[in-house]
Structure formats: structure tokens, C-alpha cells
């Protein structure tokens, strides 16, 4: 599964336009060409929206999120004064929504970075070193994958107490400990496949140092997989942080999961207070969708087969000749191959990849 950038380097094919001629100090590799895919564009747009939301939100919130209004006994429906109504305790839902995204995004990013670093270190070492190291590291990764994360996190955060969970870095760290296994597994498999490629062999024969082989030959070719496992860890952390807040385990601080925690406690769904539980749930779902879309984009980049269909349809071939195509019995219509080479290993089990975060 040599991916785009790597294949260009290795096969030495026609230099694609945009690549600086050889001889410049560092060959300028074409950026991953991702932004062409509508999935990537949509994903990035939604992510940018939420990033802006979490930065600007706390500044423009109309009220303090825990300010108590009125003395009504039940939540008030949306009105001019309270765009998203009020909670049981007569607090402004819209203000809580505006304030609630930041911490979650920050924790998710922290968890994503730490877990990705862990999975690169462990996955690549396991794949490259092989032998007993591989056996042990793989086992470790699999144990963390198989052990259900939710009850484990409940114990960890339970004993830590609410004060400990105020420390966003600590929360991110704990979430990352339960979330690195999948990335390590996928990276190990890919490293295993790369280390026996000819170009790695030749580097070894030339006498390159091991660190150089890993950092200069192998890691660059793992970029899409590292990116994809980073996105999934972030998705996992978003789901996990929301779930922890929903369980009342981390100090809610009006995170979206925290709003849902209070909404569930007051039976918002049964009582029909839709303005209370739909905005936070929808926000988490949209954020998650953006991350999944980005990942689909990367998947399609790695495996062009997944993309061919959409392209065929967009170019009009699929629509008009649907009869013809259904006679093809699934042969991949090669519309426009990118420099990626075909898969040479069976697809990895999808696991987290397809099942998203904890929530």
C-alpha cells in the first residue's frame, strides 16, 4: 500500500507537475492533493466552524452560562430572550452551548496528539524490530483494544474525583491511554509491509542508520495512516469526553456532554424539552461527522477503489450506463488512477475505524 507521495519517490515515474526539479535541497512534494475531495472540503469546513465557535463563543455569549433567570418551574421554550430556551434550573441553553465546545476540543486535541505519538512509537517499533519486541508490543496494543474503555475510564475518573478532572491535560492524557491501540495496530501492519520493500532493503544495504531508515524512509510513507489514526483518536476523544461528562464523571463546565447530563437527569426527552438536548447532541454529532468525513477522504486517497464510484457518477458515466455497469459485475472502472499503487495486503479489520468514538 505505497501511498501517493511515496510511490512517486520510489518508482521515479514522470515527475508530476508542481514538483521542483531534482537538485533542490529538498524535493518539494506535492501536498496530499486532498482538498479536491468534497468529503475533505466539507469535513474541513465543519471543523473550522467549530474551531471558530469555541474561540469566539465564550466572547459573544449573551449571558453567563450558570446565571439563573425567571422563576418558572419548568424549562422555557426558545424565545427572543433565550434563543435556545432555558434549562430546568432556568439557565440559558444558548450561552451554555457557546461556552461548551472549547474544553472538549482542547481535550480531544491533546488526547489525539498523545495517543498518536504513542501509537507511532509502539506501532513502528513493533513492525520494524519484529521478533519478541513485536510480540509483546502487539499484545499490549491488543489488550488495550479489547478491554472496554468506558468502565475502565469510569474507575480512573471515579477515583481521581471531580477536582482531578478539572485538569484538561490530565483528562486528555487518560483518554489517550485508552485510545492508542488501534493506531498502533494499523501502523504496525503497514510498517511490516514497508520494511520488506526493495527501497528499504537497499537503504539497509547501503548502510543507512536504523534511525534514518525509520525517519526518512518509513515514516513519510506512513503519513496518511498517521493522519487517519490521529483523526480517529480525536473522534474517539470527542465521544469519550462527551460520554464522561454525560455520566457526570468529569466536571461538566457546561461541556456539551454536561448539558446532556443535566437534560437526561431531568427527563428532557420524555417531557419534550427538545431545545435542551438537541443542540448539544447535534453539535457533537456534526463534529463527529466532520472527522469521519475527513477520514473517508483519506481512506479514498489510500484506496482509490473506494473513490471510483463517486467519480464515475460525477463524470456522468455511471448514471447513463447503469445497465451496462451492472453487467460489469463489480470490476473497478479505472477512471483516473492516482499515483497510488494497488493494495497488496488484505484490508485491516476496521474496528474503531468504522465504529467511531465511545459514544
Amino acid at each position, binding site marked *: 500500500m505505497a501511498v501517493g507521495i511515496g510511490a512517486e519517490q520510489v518508482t521515479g515515474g514522470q515527475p508530476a507537475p508542481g514538483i521542483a526539479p531534482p537538485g533542490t535541497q529538498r524535493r518539494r512534494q506535492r501536498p496530499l492533493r486532498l482538498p479536491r475531495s468534497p468529503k475533505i472540503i466539507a469535513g474541513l469546513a465543519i471543523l473550522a466552524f467549530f474551531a471558530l465557535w469555541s474561540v469566539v463563543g465564550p466572547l459573544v455569549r449573551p449571558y453567563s452560562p450558570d446565571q439563573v433567570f425567571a422563576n418558572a418551574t419548568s424549562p422555557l421554550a426558545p424565545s427572543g430572550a433565550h434563543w435556545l430556551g432555558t434549562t430546568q434550573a432556568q439557565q440559558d441553553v444558548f450561552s451554555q452551548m457557546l461556552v461548551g465546545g472549547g474544553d472538549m476540543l482542547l481535550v480531544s486535541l491533546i488526547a489525539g496528539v498523545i495517543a498518536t505519538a504513542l501509537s507511532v512509537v509502539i506501532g513502528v517499533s513493533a513492525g520494524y524490530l519484529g521478533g519478541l519486541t513485536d510480540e509483546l508490543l502487539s499484545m499490549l496494543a491488543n489488550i488495550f483494544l479489547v478491554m472496554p474503555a468506558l468502565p*475502565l475510564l469510569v*474507575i480512573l475518573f471515579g477515583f481521581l474525583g471531580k477536582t482531578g478532572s478539572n485538569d484538561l491535560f490530565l483528562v486528555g492524557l487518560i483518554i489517550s491511554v485508552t485510545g492508542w491501540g488501534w493506531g498502533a495496530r494499523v501502523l504496525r501492519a503497514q510498517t511490516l509491509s514497508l520494511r520488506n520493500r526493495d527501497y528499504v532493503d537497499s537503504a539497509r544495504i547501503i548502510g543507512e542508520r536504523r534511525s534514518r531508515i525509520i525517519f526518512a524512509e518509513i515514516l513519510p510513507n506512513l503519513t496518511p495512516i498517521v493522519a487517519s489514526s490521529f483523526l480517529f483518536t480525536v473522534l474517539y476523544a470527542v465521544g469519550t469526553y462527551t460520554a464522561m461528562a*454525560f455520566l457526570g464523571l468529569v466536571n461538566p463546565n457546561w461541556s456539551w456532554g454536561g448539558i446532556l447530563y443535566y437534560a437526561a437527569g431531568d427527563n428532557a426527552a420524555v417531557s419534550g424539552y427538545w431545545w435542551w438536548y438537541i443542540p448539544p447532541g447535534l453539535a457533537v454529532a456534526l463534529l463527529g461527522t466532520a472527522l469521519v468525513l475527513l477520514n473517508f477522504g483519506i481512506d479514498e486517497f489510500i484506496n482509490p477503489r473506494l473513490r471510483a464510484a463517486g467519480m464515475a457518477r460525477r463524470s456522468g458515466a455511471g448514471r447513463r450506463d447503469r445497465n451496462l455497469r451492472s453487467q460489469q459485475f463489480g470490476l473497478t472502472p479505472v477512471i483516473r488512477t492516482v499515483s497510488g499503487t494497488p493494495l497488496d495486503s488484505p484490508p485491516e479489520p476496521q474496528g474503531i475505524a468504522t465504529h467511531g468514538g*465511545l459514544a
Partner: protein
Amino acid sequence: MRVIARRLFFYLVTAVIAISLDFLIPRLIPGNPVEAILAKMPGQVTPAVIHALDVQFGVNTSASLWTQYVHYWSNVVHGNLGVSVGNGFAPVSTVIRGALPYTLGLIGVATVISFVLGTAIGAIVAWKRGSRLDSLLPVVTFFQAAPYFFLAFLALALFAIKLGWFPSGRAAQIGDFPAFTWTYISDVLDHAVLPGLTIVLASAAGWIVGMRNVMLTTMDEDYVLIAAAKGLAKPRVIWYAARNAILPSVSGFALAIGFIVSGSLLTEIVFSYPGLGSLLVQAVSDDDYALMQGLFLIITFAVLAANLIADFVYVFLDPRTRQEA
């Protein structure tokens, strides 16, 4: 069989590590859980109970860590998981035993349905690649990304409250006592449908995407082309491709089941379903550490058992794993 033996060994190691974590976490994290518990219920606790709690969490004890560990193991082996302070000091194992059947029934059945349905839909979506079915994918993406418990909110509000098709929570009507009668059983089934549907809806998305992606690759294999060229009926050809495409889904089951169980437990909370998920939230609000620990062990064991079943299915499906090397 070697494959199964290997897996069995792996699950054994995982179980040992889970039990050790259960032992270590309260002792490694700073703070005194016993004090936290006593602060919540002043005056209700006898010295004997305090001593039992001390022993359980390794507080105020002179015994070495190793002695405590050995003691802990003997307790676990005897099914003694401590007492639940949130349930009138009833043994944790009793509390869990009361809730376990509901969760096993609900999540077990829902997971099987979702796997079968999801892989079937995934195979069809892949087969009809480029057709209108592809527009199913964005919808699936949304369900994949949405938290299970948010979908539960929506399902509850729409189907139970607005349309009134299903009861709005709990496992049976209030005042309906467990008995092996048709009225009771149908009542329980009636209450399980909506939470079950929510779990199926939320988890099927993953199976659909996973199956579709592998199926797209499998469909290009020569044997599929030959099957089609021979003039076999279309369902037959799809079946040949799907049979092989399903293998990664089955082996990926191990990775997915933990997420599905976690999400489903949170779903239970929204439906006030009296299973392990509700115990989990109760344990959190009561600072009931022993119950949390017991739940962690039980849920881990259940997940490992589900994995073992998936392994047996895999060995059954894939003859290559049956070859003795």
C-alpha cells in the same frame, strides 16, 4: 485447535491484567476513597464496614502490596467483589447479578441483529456501487458519528412520547413482577424494542461502512468474475463475494464490541433501563467505588467472552485457520 488456544491465552492475559488494574488503580491514584465514602454517609457506617472498605481499597493497612494482591485475587476468585455503599452495603456481585440479564439480553440481541443487518446492507451498497444507494452513506456517516445516547434521546422523544408506539423507559411496567408468564415476558420485550432499535441503528453504521469497503475490494477478484461469467444467479454471485468480504468484519468484531457495549450502556441510561449502564451512572453519583470496579470486571469478562465466540465463528468460517501447521 492452535488458533483458539492462542486466543484463549491472550484473553486470559487480558483478564489477569484487568483484575490487576482493578486492584492497582485505587492504590495508585492519590486520595482516600474510604473517607470520600464516609463523608457521604455520616453515622450510618459500622466499624466492621469501615474495616472492610479499608481492606478493599488498601487504606490504613500495614499489609504489603503483595499480600493485599494475593488477598484480592482470592476474593475475586470467590466472587467477592466487595460491598456496594449505594445499595445498602449489599454485595456488589448480588447487585450486578440483578442487572446483568437485562443488559446481556438487550445488548446481545441488538448486537447480533445489527451485525447481520449491517453487513447485509453493506454488501448490497457495495454491489450497487454508483447507484442511488450511495446516498445512504452520508446518512450512515451521521449515525456513525452521533453519540448513541443522543440517538436514544431522539428515539425516546419521537417514538415513545410523540407517536406513543413504545413505552418510555424501564424494562417493565411498574408493579409488574418478574414471573415466567406470557404477560410479563411480552411486557419486557415491549420495553426492550426501542432501546434495542436505538442500539441497532447506532451500531449498524459501522458494520455497513466496514463491509462496503472490503466488499468493494472483493468484488474485483477473479472468482467473482468467473462466477458471473458462468451465468450464476446474481444473489449467488453476491453471496460468493460477501462470504469472503465478511471475514475482516468478523475479525474486527473484537475491536468493535467494546465500543458498542460502551455506547449501549449509555443508551440504557437514557431509557432508564435497569441494566449495567444504569448501575454505572448510579455508582458514579454515589461514589460507589466497589460497584464501579465490579462493573469494570464484569463488563470486561463479558466482552472477552463475546470475542471468544467471534473467534470460534471465524475459525468456522475460514478454513485456513483450521489447518494445523
